[in-house]
């Protein structure tokens, strides 16, 4: 089945130690998104790619970076994780257009010790 896959499901890192979360998709969608969701809060958009065009949200900290080497893969890099970065990170994809639904992966739960 076509889907969005996130690895790993659970990631533990140390304060200040760089970490990379990965996302792959078999839907061949043009658009890929990264959302951050903290406990009992709304998913918050960090950035998105339309093909290789990167779009950063104005309030996304510089500590968060992303790479999309090809259509299928997208990575979220957190350069120096702080305790406040512990959250569920959700990758999503959508087709081209302004009324497309999003397809989410199962998320990566990041813990920072």
């Amino acid at each position, binding site marked *: 089945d076509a889907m*969005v896959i*996130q690895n790993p499901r659970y990631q533990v890192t140390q304060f200040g130690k760089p970490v990379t979360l990965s996302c792959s998709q078999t839907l061949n969608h*043009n*658009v890929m998104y990264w*959302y951050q969701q903290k406990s*009992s*809060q*709304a*998913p*918050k*958009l960090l950035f*998105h790619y*339309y093909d290789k065009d990167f*779009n950063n949200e104005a309030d996304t900290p510089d500590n968060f970076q992303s790479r999309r080497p090809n259509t299928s893969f997208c990575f979220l890099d957190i350069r120096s994780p702080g305790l406040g970065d512990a959250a*569920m990170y*959700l990758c*999503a994809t*959508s087709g*081209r*257009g*302004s*009324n*497309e*639904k*999003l*397809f*989410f*992966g*199962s*998320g990566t*739960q990041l813990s920072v010790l």
Partner: protein
Amino acid sequence: SQKIEQNSEALNIQEGKTATLTCNYTNYSPAYLQWYRQDPGRGPVFLLLIRENEKEKRKERLKVTFDTTLKQSLFHITASQPADSATYLCALDMGWGGATNKLIFGTGTLLAVQP
């Protein structure tokens, strides 16, 4: 300021009853509104989309209304079942046009259906 508000309290209902969840927003003018279901520890799953010029949309036991005057959407699940227990998120799609849509999510309402 811009806000999306969903019932912060959990909604507890009896199996077989109709669940009604509310999404209110201020200082937004969404072109579309979407509803998602999220189970614990999982990503959201799309349920329904309704456009600003549509009053109501149905899909099986689900019904969504969209009132742009009241700035409110209601999400109904009829003949609710314990398997419907989850968090339901509304998301505003500003319809910025072009090639992408950016959804702004509410915090969700936790629905618990008791057998």
